[in-house]
């Protein structure tokens, strides 16, 4: 092989190596950049979807609050007022018919109307989110449990652990609504006799536990039901907890108690 030929081959080899290296570096660089960018796009999309979901949930909660507030006020101002008027008439009638044989029936009616007035007042308070704002979560939960207790169908217990700290108006309202939903589920489906609500104020997190001693249910089966059935209620609870930056775990098994465990990190709550 002549020296010229060796030189030519050497030139080709050196240039080839440099070119190949450049190609590999360019290719690898592009692939890395592409995947990084794709990852970033996926994360951004996820964040947008999450934000969108949060906003929808937020407006759903606001609409629900407004509706409940309106219903609560209507109950208090209109129905409550009418019942009070009925009570006045009944009292008048009671005095007029002091010696009548119907007096016993009137007194029974007066008692029913009195209880109804109390129930309507209590219900209107629990429906009004201002109650949570004014009295705080603990007091509102106590009122709600008292109202359920009065129905005579359930024994209720409220246990507060730790030193209570404010969780923020919005968080407390959402937590209160979540508790109401859990309590309604217990009343409607559990078939139990006792409900216990525990609030635990820890240094790094807040925990709200709602338990009943009912017949329990298969959580997996209920969670997979379509959106318009009961499963959506459980999903709704979890979504609300996520909205607050926390978690909601529902544990139950057929024949065992049901426990709804809502945990909020303290910073997210405040």
């Amino acid at each position, binding site marked *: 092989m002549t020296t010229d030929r060796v030189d030519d081959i050497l030139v080709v080899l050196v240039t080839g190596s440099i070119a190949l290296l450049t*190609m590999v570096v*360019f290719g690898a660089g592009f692939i890395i950049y592409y995947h990084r*960018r794709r990852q970033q796009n996926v994360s951004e999309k996820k964040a947008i979807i999450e934000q969108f979901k949060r906003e929808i949930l937020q407006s759903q909660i606001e609409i629900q609050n407004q509706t409940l507030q309106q219903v609560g006020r209507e109950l208090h101002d209109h129905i409550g007022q009418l019942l009070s008027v009925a009570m006045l008439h009944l009292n008048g009638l009671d005095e007029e018919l002091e010696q009548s044989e119907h007096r016993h029936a009137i007194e029974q009616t007066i008692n029913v109307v009195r209880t109804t007035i109390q129930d309507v007042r209590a219900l209107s308070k629990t429906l009004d989110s201002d109650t949570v704002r004014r009295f705080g979560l603990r007091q509102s939960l106590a009122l709600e449990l008292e109202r359920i207790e009065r129905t005579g169908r359930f024994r209720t217990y409220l246990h507060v652990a730790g030193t209570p700290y404010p969780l923020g108006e919005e968080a407390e309202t959402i937590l209160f609504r979540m508790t109401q939903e859990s309590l309604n589920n217990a009343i409607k489906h559990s078939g139990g006799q006792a409900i216990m609500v525990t609030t635990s104020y820890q240094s790094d997190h807040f925990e709200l536990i709602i338990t009943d001693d009912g017949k329990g249910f298969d959580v997996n089966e209920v969670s997979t039901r379509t959106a318009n059935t009961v499963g959506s209620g459980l999903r709704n609870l979890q979504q609300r907890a996520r909205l607050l930056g926390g978690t909601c775990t529902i544990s139950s098994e057929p024949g065992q108690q049901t426990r709804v465990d809502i945990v909020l990190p303290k910073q997210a709550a405040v």
Partner: protein
Amino acid sequence: MVSLFFKLGLADQLYLMLLLIALVILVVKYDKIPYNLKPLIWLTASHFTAEIFADYINYELHQNNLFIYHLLTPIEYLCLSLIFFKTFASKSLSLLVLWSILTYFLFVVICELMWEPIEVNNSIAFIAECLLVVYWCFVYFKKLLQQEDDYRPEHDRTFWVIISILIYFTGNLFILGTFNYFVEYKLAMGPQIYYTGYAFYYIFYLVVIATHTLNYFRDYDYRSG
């Protein structure tokens, strides 16, 4: 033909062998070549034919073979632009590629008539071709960044072929683009500069062979965007 092969330098022999292997593989696997890369066959065939004729004229007839490259350059650009035309999903971009073929042909004719007659190297036409091809390569990479779903460039046959085209034309932009200058002013360096270009030919055809023989590479439907 065989006697001509043994008269050639090692670099030319290697190049011809690579061209032949690539051509055979592309012809055998014609049905499996993705829609957008089918013009590669015409590109390889034109390179192979041009190389055979150029070597024959140079080694057997001992005459100037540069006119072959004057013919090859527009054919080469036509084949490459067809690859890009079929690869780009955007209608407007594909149309732009088609128009660039006409414009480039016109430019080559002007160059031939005004500055680069067939007996000298067609550096200007080649530089223009390189610039256009490099531009289309970058347009392709930019479009790739907008790909979504489960696209993976590392497995994409077209991606590696386009990278090798980019390297081929970036390298040759400097080598063949400055060839006239070296022939005119630094003749001693001419052959070495010329042989440097072979490295890019080898890489390009090695990539073509690899992407059409290894199962690692897949095809993506670029027409769907």
